[in-house]
């Protein structure tokens, strides 16, 4: 449905997007994940034809965005990071304008009413957009993207700045839309992406650093297992002893508790088990283990590691 090939966007010497390729099948919700300034918005702006790429191609359902912009754009519903709302218009007038602008061929009143019902803004027709709350503005932006039932929906951080209830509503909406549309959806909140999406692309510094099905993401990406311990005794001796254990990659002291105990995390090699070794080592130096808990690296930590390792230092400027 959406084919992106070798997409690169340069701003002077800076590569905002660096040779990105991916394709999305119909009916898939793709999560686009990355820290601020990773190139998510730039990529989405290129896919929707708002800006052009320095090199590379984007094809929407067989239509190239540069060669066939009208056909390609007609297949996309786009909700940019800041919803493109004319604040001096009423909700109804705005949606009618967008309906005409997109040259939608459906029955106008019925379709607009249907879209408004879908995003729960029925009853707001007569309100001026500038008087709406952030959450409602976002929904009007959403409604605008849905006009004409485009097969591809591109949503740039649709949940930013909403309250928890609204976030849940928008997430449910995206999930229900994913049944009929191809959705590309960006976020810097990992839990959100892993909750909604079928597939996740992690992007950092303009490069794709991971591309996997959501449920396989953890398994494919994680190299390390983790053990969380609370041990009593001199921490220097404990750390030194833990580091001697084979397959241990790193030991970190998190915090100290009263009574000469402290909390440590130990990263160790995948497919090994160090729990017995840890027990033996600690009993050797007579430092009792008060608590031991094994757990995988959380998605959040993995995300941080990935975007740091492969993408380099992330900066805050948004693209």
């Amino acid at each position: 449905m959406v084919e992106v090939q070798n997409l690169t966007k340069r701003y002077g010497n800076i590569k905002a997007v660096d040779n990105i390729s991916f394709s999305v099948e119909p009916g898939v919700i793709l999560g686009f994940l990355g820290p601020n300034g990773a190139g998510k918005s730039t990529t989405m702006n290129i896919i929707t034809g708002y800006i052009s790429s320095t090199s590379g191609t984007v094809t929407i359902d067989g239509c190239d965005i540069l060669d066939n912009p009208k056909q390609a754009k007609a297949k996309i519903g786009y909700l940019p990071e800041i919803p493109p709302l004319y604040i001096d218009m009423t909700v109804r007038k705005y949606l009618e304008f967008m309906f005409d602008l997109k040259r939608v061929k459906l029955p106008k009143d019925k379709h607009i009413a249907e879209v408004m019902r879908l995003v729960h803004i029925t009853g707001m027709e007569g309100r001026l957009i500038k008087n709406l709350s952030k959450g409602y503005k976002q929904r009007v932006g959403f409604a605008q993207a849905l006009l004409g039932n485009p097969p591809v929906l591109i949503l740039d951080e649709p949940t930013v700045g909403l309250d928890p209830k609204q976030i849940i509503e928008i997430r449910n909406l995206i999930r229900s839309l994913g049944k009929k549309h191809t959705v590309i959806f960006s976020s810097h909140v990992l839990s959100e992406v892993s909750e909604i999406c079928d597939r996740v692309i992690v992007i950092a510094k303009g490069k794709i650093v991971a591309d996997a099905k959501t449920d396989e993401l953890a398994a494919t990406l994680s190299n390390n297992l983790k053990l969380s311990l609370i041990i009593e005794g001199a921490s220097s001796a404990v750390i030194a002893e833990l580091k001697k254990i084979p397959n241990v990659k790193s030991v970190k002291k998190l915090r100290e508790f009263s009574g000469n105990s402290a909390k440590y995390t130990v990263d160790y090699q995948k497919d090994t088990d160090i729990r017995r070794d840890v027990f033996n080592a600690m009993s050797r130096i007579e430092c009792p283990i008060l608590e031991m808990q094994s757990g995988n690296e959380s998605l959040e930590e993995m995300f941080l590691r990935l975007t740091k390792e492969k993408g380099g230092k992330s900066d805050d400027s948004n693209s």
Partner: protein
Amino acid sequence: MTAILKRELSSYFRSATAYVVMGVYFFFSGLFFYLYCFRANSTNLSYVYANMFYIIMFIIPIIAMKTFSEEKRQKTDQALLTSPTSLTEIVLGKFLGAFILYSICCSIFLLYAVVISFFAQPQWSVVLCTFLGILLLGGSFIAINVFISALTESMIVAAVAGMAIGLIIDMMTYFISMISITWIADLLGKINFINYYQNFTYGVLSIVDVVFFLSVTAMFLFFTVRILEKRRWS
């Protein structure tokens, strides 16, 4: 294009812009009508519109300042540029919106001619010719201001720059008289708007004048399209 045109027009009339612009326009044209026709006991309307030239140069930047600068600032250009509408249609829609508001202002001129006709038979050829001249002049100046608006994100900057250019066009004749190098003076004379506009107010309809204004309009609308296109590529 019609969607954009409709939105532009309704946006002028939903805000104070249309009413302020029309008020100012009607006030000054009424003033000049009173001074040059009633006070002077004349039925000659051409002085009224020779003077309106200066007012128009201030009003048009106000009409056109928002066209693209505000879209860019509010990020609504994202909706326009990602819709299945070409840049040319967007620019034409915006231009026509401003032009129609301007034409509504100008139509008061025809009313003056009707008023005159109660006292004496006006020279309809002069009236209609002048009216065409006003529309053509306004069209070209709107195109220039739409272009300026596409260059900036601030409508204030667009309006001030537009007025500055309007002043330069107003005073072109004085500038030319100050320049002693003949070829430069000749060249500037060729792009002096007043030279072309005045012929209309005399009732002279010449193809040269019409083509001049139409080509200025087309040229700046084309530049606007190019500027929007360039922004996507940079």
